[in-house]
């Protein structure tokens, strides 16, 4: 079976970074790399869900954290798996300070511009990992 890249956003609900991370992951999975990339609920790893654990054990993992608390990376590592790449949404925001998301879930035009930039960055990281594998 062809291996996939598993991209896991942080599930943050307190800041707009969490939603930006999720939307970027969805953009990659649905628009940019359908078939190559998948995700799973971070919360499933917290309950030791066998399917979710098997998915990350068998594949490369990229985490997308909203902020420096690094919840996605830490929760993946807590299962014993090392992540292959760890991205932070806040770093994209730092490079594009003029773009401010509207709200925590309602990102607005600027927020979605940041999402697109993050999705592109994620896409590049995925390309890098896939090159390594081939």
């Amino acid at each position, binding site marked *: 079976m062809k291996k996939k890249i598993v991209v896991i956003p942080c*599930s*943050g*609900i*307190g800041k707009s970074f969490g939603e930006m991370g999720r939307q970027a992951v969805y953009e990659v999975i649905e628009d940019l790399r359908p078939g190559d990339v998948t*995700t799973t*609920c971070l*919360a499933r790893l*917290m309950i030791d869900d066998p399917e979710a654990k098997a998915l990350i054990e068998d594949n490369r993992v990229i985490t997308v954290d909203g902020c420096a608390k690094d919840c996605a990376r830490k929760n993946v590592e807590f299962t014993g798996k090392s992540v292959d790449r760890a991205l932070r949404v806040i770093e994209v925001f730092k490079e594009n300070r003029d773009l401010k998301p509207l709200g*925590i879930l309602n990102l607005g035009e600027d927020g979605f511009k940041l999402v697109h930039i993050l999705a592109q960055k994620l896409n590049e990281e995925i390309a890098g990992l896939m090159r390594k594998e081939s």
Partner: protein
Amino acid sequence: MLQEFKQEKVGIIPCNGEDLCEGTLTRFACRKVLDTLRPHETVTICLPLFIAGDAGERNFAKTFPTITVDGCAKRCSQVTTEKLSGKPRYAVVVSELLKERGMEAPSSKRTLTRKDQAAIDLVAEDIAGKVDEILRKG
């Protein structure tokens, strides 16, 4: 020197599941409760911080009443909260609640439609009602 002030607040702990449409719904419904329906009575708890964070989230959930809001029957938020902190006062499972009320789950994880807004409102009102019950009973 530590002082603690008991606040009349309920912690809302959504699962935020990324892999299911109901997970997206949990987020929107919970934010509606936090921002609009019961802004002074509730506080959000980020589930992954139970493992990744300092003791703030776990301690809050030990001390104050919580409502877990799960997208599906895996009940990740309920199970994790019980394991790492304490039993929630209420455990909402969105897929079950929608089925009970004869409503369809959203069809997309990414965007929610106007039709989905009715589902968001339903779940949010259910959570808000539970918040009221908790604060009435103490």
